[in-house]
């Protein structure tokens, strides 16, 4: 896939959740296109639909209306096992609360997606070492999460998300539990991985200080995309501008 090929296409997506005796639209006719290799932030206040959008792109939820294409595959019509396979092969996840398996060491946590994919032991070992090295945690490989700092845990989570070379890494508020220094370092790390490895990153945040580290900022409000801006240095400005027009 070329760097500018379209990876994600969100077409007029609505996600409605039941609430008491009525419904609430977490996303309302939202549209978005993301090219391979982008480093994109989704911002907006709490309740604006950031996590819902990431869940839909990440194939862990299905839209009420509209369609989402991931690498050309319409996920709204996929059967559950195909959705699972798509997540396993093409998507890496980073969560706000790290979500590491506490009884596994850092290396074992990073190894888990490869285990699920059925990668051989030797290959797993090699890739885990590479992923941990890329996040600067080779020395902490045999530590369990409770012996790691918050920043280190999130870096392990990033290593876990990239170890199987996914087409897309989704990070839902990855810096929410980190102080400013660690948060900035994490965003810079993800950005570095984006540049070095060509991985597509989409992360949500409501921390305005981190947005200056991104190439593109999509802002949501009340479930709708209210702005889609290319920041200075954004690598795909012209392409995106043409797609969004």
């Amino acid at each position, binding site marked *: 896939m070329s760097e500018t090929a379209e990876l994600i296409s969100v077409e007029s997506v609505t996600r409605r959740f039941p609430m008491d005796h009525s419904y609430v639209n977490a996303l309302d006719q939202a549209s978005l296109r993301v090219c391979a290799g982008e480093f994109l932030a989704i911002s907006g206040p709490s309740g604006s639909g950031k996590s819902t959008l990431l*869940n839909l792109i990440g194939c862990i939820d299905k839209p009420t209306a509209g369609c989402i294409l991931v690498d050309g595959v319409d996920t709204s019509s996929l059967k559950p096992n195909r959705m699972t396979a798509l997540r396993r092969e093409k998507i890496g*996840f980073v969560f706000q609360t790290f*979500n590491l398996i506490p009884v596994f060491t850092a290396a074992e946590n990073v190894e888990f997606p490869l285990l699920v994919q059925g990668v051989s032991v030797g290959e797993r070992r090699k890739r885990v070492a590479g992923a941990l090295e890329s996040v600067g945690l080779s020395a902490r490989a045999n530590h369990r999460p409770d012996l790691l700092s918050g920043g280190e845990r999130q870096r392990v989570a990033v290593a876990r998300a990239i170890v199987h070379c996914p087409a897309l890494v989704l990070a839902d508020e990855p810096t929410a539990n980190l102080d400013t220094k660690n948060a900035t370092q994490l965003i810079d790390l993800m950005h570095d991985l984006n540049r070095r490895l060509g991985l597509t990153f989409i992360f949500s945040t409501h921390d305005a200080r981190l947005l200056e580290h991104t190439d593109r900022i999509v802002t949501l409000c009340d479930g709708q995309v209210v702005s889609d801006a290319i920041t200075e240095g954004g690598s795909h400005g012209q392409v995106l501008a043409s797609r969004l027009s």
Partner: protein
Amino acid sequence: MGKFLLLAFRNVFRNRRRTVMTLLMVGGGVAGLLLAGGYFAFMTHGLRESTINNGLGHLQIFTADYFRRDEVRVLDTGIENWRQVAANVGSVKHVRGVAPRIDFYGMVSNGSKAAGFMGSAVDPNAEKSLGFVTNVVSGRDLDPRPTGEVEALIGVGLAKSMSVKVGDGLTILAMTSDGALNGVDVQIVGIVNSGVAQLDARYIRITLPAAQRLLSSDRVTNLVIGLDATEHTDQAYAEILPRLHGMPQELTLKKWIDLATYYKQVNTMFNGIFLFMGVIVFFMVLLSSVNTLLMAMMERTREIGTMLAMGTPRAWIVALFMVEATLLGVMGAVFGLVAGNLLGALLNSSGLHLPPPPGYTHDMPFKVLHVPAMMIGSSVLVVVSLALASILPAVRASRLQISEALAHV
């Protein structure tokens, strides 16, 4: 697979207090079953051997008519050529000896008082050769050598009701094989206690020749065969049975288990109690484990959501919970086996005795047998219980909505 098992193993020890409590419960169930089952096994094994050694023997030969019809006259269903049969059977492997017996009934009197009796006529030498134990509480056993006096052993209850003691004389009356009434004076040489009060109240034992004279018959009721070990019963049965064919009379061979009615009743009762206990332990382990595993599942909701988000097949989540529960079951079973056997050994060395059961006059030693089959059965029971208990939490975990699981607090 190795990492997957490692994850399951580590998850078991995630909440150590809860794991210890579960292991105590599962292990306690296994230990309880082993102790109860071991005690029942001791009781039934003891009852089996005492039933055999108190005179039942391992095998008995009767005429076929003995089971087909009631006797019209004394010993008319008895074995005629019993010496030939005994000699033929006595050479079979594992046979320790053959003892002829006559069962007879009648009245006993001391001149002022009379009572009904159940008589047994034996060859004292043959009985001794088979190791049959006669519990003589006063006096001595029957003398195998013919003497002028007819010697008799009587039950302790009968001696009490007739107000007689060793050295006293009694007259016993019985119908002969011709239908006539015959009597013989006997001298009491010993008082016996079989341990069964109802039997001791009516029991008289005399020698075989004396009984044959009393009953005017050369026949015997049956031939009792003693083996070197109870475990050889089936083998000896298979070897003896063909030798009984071609005899002038149609003969039947019975195993001890076919004749030990009381043993079978007790065994059935113990099996029933043990089964009931097993059912209780099964449900106890099942219900409490379901609760424990559901709690573990709730605590790990977000983690399960993360694993599902990463593309872990739902079947893996089911398998993970079932493997964890099975591991718990295996560890609980091992703990229970160790605890049960140690407690059993401790009880065995303590010399505890229990009061006599109804109908018995001796107190019972409290012993626990270590039965391998019971250890395997109890272990399998709890492991299966745990595996079954994990199905509900495992299925629930695998069906979690990923987005909801990830948002779980």
